[in-house]
């Protein structure tokens, strides 16, 4: 009886670790690949059984740090696709707030 309990517990731990590492590995992929992975996952399995927000914050901490130079970019504006704005055009002029996001 005790032996079966131990085996059951071991099995649960192994499954949990497998789930944890699979989701973690997916979080470390590109957004498209992570999205494709999550499409096939029951949300409750990820959000209820794992410390998913903390895993996400760790997986997406990124390479930039405060105090480092912000990578320059030159992107077209939504209003006028022929107009572009470079981050470096503000250098020495004024601080910049960047709000990254999408519709969904």
């Amino acid at each position, binding site marked *: 009886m005790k032996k079966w309990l131990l085996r059951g517990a071991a099995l649960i731990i192994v499954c949990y670790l497998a789930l944890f590492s699979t989701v973690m590995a997916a979080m470390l992929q590109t*957004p*498209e690949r*992570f*999205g*494709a992975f*999550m*499409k096939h996952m029951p*949300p409750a399995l990820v959000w209820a059984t794992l410390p998913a*927000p903390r895993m*996400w*914050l760790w*997986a*997406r*901490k*990124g*390479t*930039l*740090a*405060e*105090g*480092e*130079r*912000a*990578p*320059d*970019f030159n*992107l*077209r*504006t*939504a*209003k006028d*696709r022929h107009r572009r*704005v470079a*981050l*470096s055009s*503000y*250098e*020495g*002029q*004024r*601080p*910049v*707030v*960047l*709000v*990254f*996001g*999408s*519709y*969904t």
Partner: protein
Amino acid sequence: MPALNKLYRDYRDRVAFHVVYIEEAHPIDAWQVSDNKKDAVLVASTKTADERDKVANVCVVKLGIELPALIDEPDNRVERAYTAWPDRLYVINRDGTIAYKSAAGPFGFKPEDVEAALKRILPAPVPVAH
């Protein structure tokens, strides 16, 4: 978004603001979430510049974004450089260095931290003489 619009109105004379429209978080062809289905926010992922322009403009209008918006390239180069997906906030100093980088969204998306950073880096307002 209302919090960011207010911040924009309060600081726009001293600070540049930009929304950077990046790849969709929950497009219908990948990881769609029930909230978006409920609100009929159904958007396919945007792979070409034309598609992005279209959705970015719908997004600006529907979310009532007052900040001037920029659009990331189809290769997502700016999203990659800033680890920005699905959303994230940055404040860049006048000298081009990073003053504030939020934790990854959605959990780390805190507009009030942007205001705190701006208060820290902007010179204190000159007291009005009477």
